[in-house]
């Protein structure tokens, strides 16, 4: 059986090997970007059915951001919404025959977790400057600096492993059942896999929100403690 940690190389560009994962990721990105730009070209005040569906997605994402972070969703909508939609579509891309979801490979998840890691730093620095953000590592006492530092690394790592483990195990179980039992037997597992995929996309974006909100709030609070007004 093929190892879930390996990648199939489809073709080479120059001397760079291009794997199946990269091709699927780019296909998803093209579909999402083209779909979004085509849909945004013909916006009207009396929405068509398609536009109403897109507005529903945006309002739901906004509502979740507002509920979780308790701030105005505008600065975070693009990042969180893109994360959610991309992971959702990537997890459900296993519905297309012959396509393996790119999130079932370690590299895609590592890239997504790295994006969240950088976004935490970005929003933290934007909330209180570089000094203000670095000071949050020394709260409540400077003894906590190593622990806070390790925490910011491990939570990124756990984001990566969680998404990878869930999606990959779904794909893996379907493969095993298919090779053991035959054609139509894996369908209930595929349905379960779709549910897991949707829940994991939701959880990944909610955790990204929680981490970003934590960094922003901590930065603002430590700033207030130092400068009482």
């Amino acid at each position: 059986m093929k190892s879930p940690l390996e990648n199939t190389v489809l073709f080479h560009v120059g001397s760079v090997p291009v794997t199946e994962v990269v091709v699927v990721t780019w296909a998803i990105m093209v579909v999402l970007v083209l779909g979004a730009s085509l849909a945004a070209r013909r916006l009207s005040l009396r929405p068509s059915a398609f536009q109403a569906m897109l507005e529903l997605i945006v309002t739901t994402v906004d509502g979740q951001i507002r509920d979780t972070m308790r701030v105005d969703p505008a600065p975070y909508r693009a990042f969180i919404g893109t994360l959610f939609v991309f992971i959702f579509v990537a997890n459900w891309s296993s519905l297309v025959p012959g396509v393996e979801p790119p999130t079932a490979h370690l590299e895609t998840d590592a890239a997504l977790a790295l994006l969240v890691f950088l976004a935490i730093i970005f929003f933290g620095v934007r909330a209180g400057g570089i000094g203000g953000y670095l000071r949050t590592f020394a709260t409540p006492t400077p003894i906590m600096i190593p622990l806070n530092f390790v925490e910011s690394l491990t939570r990124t790592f756990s984001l990566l492993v969680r998404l990878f483990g869930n999606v990959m195990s779904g794909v893996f179980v379907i493969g095993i059942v298919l090779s053991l039992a035959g054609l139509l037997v894996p369908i209930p597992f595929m349905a379960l896999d779709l549910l897991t995929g949707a829940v994991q996309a939701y959880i990944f974006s909610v955790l990204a929100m929680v981490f970003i909100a934590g960094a922003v709030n901590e930065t603002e609070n430590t700033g207030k403690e130092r400068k009482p007004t």
Partner: protein
Amino acid sequence: MNWLALASIVSAAIAVSFGALGPALGEGRSVAAAMDAIARQPEAANSISRTLFVGLAMIETTAIYCLVVALLLLFANPLLH
């Protein structure tokens, strides 16, 4: 098959089976507590279930760690190559 491969397979099975025990108990307890809370306060169901999902994801990560360790033992074992 040498004894190292055999030990890897057995320990992968042990890792997954025992790694699934703890999170299963923990998830059961947390879902029961969330059901209890929703039954008492149905109007807070939204925020309770969101927190529940995040918590379940955190708990589930331990099982996923065990799964990843088992897969590493089976497919990317540094001792076998």
